[in-house]
């Protein structure tokens, strides 16, 4: 069941290069670790024997803060978990509250959410894959793909006004409807992205150097990966087809046709390929959702008790004023009870466990942060490998410090 010791001792017992074991500090701040976490490596020459991790360098106490904030105020907190794909976190949290309160969401809002979440997934995977390129010595892909990310950011700006920490949407829908500019940008993106993405793919996909650097590097078996709680692209790279979007569909994902790409070996190359294919599948979902976007349904649910009213209604109508006041002061009848809701985030199953005592704030809110759980497998994945392979493995795991430490 647990063969961690055997993996480590195997690495230790292999013949050593010169018998001298050195200690190497990778982090807390190091160009090769994208984010702040420390790995103290025991190395023999270039070979990594073992690693000890320290995390918590940007622990910000989200869960404690959430116990003091109203339900609406928690949306901006979730932005800062996995900041490469903040809309998924935002919408995941809003769906959790909607599940608690039993709010019905119109089909149109669900489709819009799907479009935005898939855009976020594309931008998350683009960062990860281009950074794998950077760490194996190919900077070009990074510069190309950040142009694509900027296009996605431009679309976010049309919906919520900001780029990175989006605070997109409200409980019950969106704060405003999508505008003409968004339609234009999205159409351009759908038309042009695939071609540019294929160029990026051609840079690395069958690149001999890249393949040599990544194939067989940072391997993990399916059994160990499940035992370590791997989710998302990293789990699919070992060959397990678990995807929350299919397993327990939310926001009408059952309406769309898409494939779950899986790998076979569970090495860095597989993780790269799975993410590449997921980007294509995300684009496929966006196309379907945009084509079938209902014209009727508005941009928010009819739930005045929980949906924060528009500012002009707050200032100009008495109902808007009352609802706004009561929501902000937490006098709304939030149900007592608990709910677990998970969405497929950029790194896999992002869960929200919410316990409500009927008050203004959650009694307890816990985030299931995929990074935090699977990053502990890192020492096992790199022991016995070369130092430069450890760096590529780390970037292919896509560990985001904000999500790791919360």
């Amino acid at each position, binding site marked *: *069941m*647990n063969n*961690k010791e055997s993996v480590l001792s195997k690495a230790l017992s292999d013949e050593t290069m010169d018998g001298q074991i050195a200690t190497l500090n990778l982090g807390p701040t190091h160009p090769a670790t994208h984010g702040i976490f420390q790995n103290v490596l025991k190395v023999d020459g270039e070979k990594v024997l073992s690693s000890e991790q320290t*995390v*918590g360098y940007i*622990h910000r*106490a989200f*869960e*404690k*803060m959430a*116990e*003091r904030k109203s339900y609406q105020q928690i949306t901006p907190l979730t932005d800062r978990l996995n900041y490469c794909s903040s809309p998924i976190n935002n919408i995941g949290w809003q769906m959790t509250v909607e*599940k*608690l309160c*039993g709010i019905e969401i119109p089909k149109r809002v669900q489709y819009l959410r799907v479009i935005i979440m898939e855009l976020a997934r594309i931008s998350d995977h683009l960062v990860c894959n281009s950074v794998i390129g950077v760490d194996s010595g190919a900077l070009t892909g990074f510069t190309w793909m950040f142009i694509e990310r900027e296009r996605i950011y431009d679309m976010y700006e049309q919906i919520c006004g900001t780029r990175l920490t989006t605070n997109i949407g409200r409980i019950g829908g969106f704060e405003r409807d999508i505008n003409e500019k968004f339609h234009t940008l999205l159409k351009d993106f759908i038309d042009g992205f695939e071609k540019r993405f294929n160029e990026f793919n051609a840079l690395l996909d069958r690149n001999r150097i890249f393949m040599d650097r990544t194939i067989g590097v940072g391997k993990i078996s399916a059994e*160990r990966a*499940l*035992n*370590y*709680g791997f989710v998302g692209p990293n789990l699919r790279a070992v060959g*397990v087809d*678990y995807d929350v979007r*299919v*397993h*327990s*569909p939310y926001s009408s994902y059952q309406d769309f046709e898409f494939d779950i790409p899986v790998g076979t070996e569970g090495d860095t190359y597989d993780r790269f390929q799975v993410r590449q294919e997921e980007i294509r599948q995300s684009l496929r979902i966006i196309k379907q959702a945009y084509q079938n976007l209902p014209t009727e349904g508005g941009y928010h649910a009819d739930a005045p008790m929980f949906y924060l009213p528009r500012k002009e209604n707050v200032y100009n109508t008495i109902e808007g004023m009352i609802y706004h006041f009561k929501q902000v002061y937490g006098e709304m009848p939030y*149900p007592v*009870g*608990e*709910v*677990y*809701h*998970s969405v497929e985030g950029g790194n896999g*199953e992002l*869960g929200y*466990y919410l*316990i409500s005592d009927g008050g203004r704030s959650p*009694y*307890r809110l*816990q985030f*299931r942060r995929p990074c*935090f*759980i*699977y*990053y*502990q*497998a890192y020492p096992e994945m790199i022991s016995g490998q070369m130092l430069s392979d450890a760096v590529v493995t780390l970037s292919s795991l896509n560990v985001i410090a904000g999500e790791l*430490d*919360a």
Partner: protein
Amino acid sequence: MESKLTNEQVLEALRAQFANAIGEEEQTIDNYLTVYVDPKSVHEMVKWLFIHDGFRVRFLTNITGVHYPDNEKGKELMVVYHLHSLENNFRIRLKAFLPIDKPEIDSIEDIYSAANWIERETYDFFGIVFKNHPNLKRILNEDSMDYFPMRKEYRVEDGTRQDKDDRFFGR
């Protein structure tokens, strides 16, 4: 994907196996099977669910603590385990109450490697001691911290900010 197991089916099997350790079932909004269990038998139960051929609950979703300061004595802390059977798409939630003066429960790190850090985090936040854990120390906070910050009696604020005037915050 529909779940292949029903809550009743699993609960019945659990009751048959662990007659005295299973407490009452709780109805939750998300309809996941939620049962209160005896903390002493959590390890055994998780292991049984893991090796059970029909259920195959082999994925640890999460472990977390909850602090209920107003509960009766001996039930101030609660540990919640979320387990998931990927093959049957079935989720189960186990809850165990612990006394705050001696919050001890068996670690399930030997069953799930993922539990290592999650249990350390729960210890860090709530001071829940997981027995037989290989390396139970703080993970997110500094080692020098002398309290468990997620317990309800501790405040969230840093307390050193001067730019926050209470008059403007209604405190």
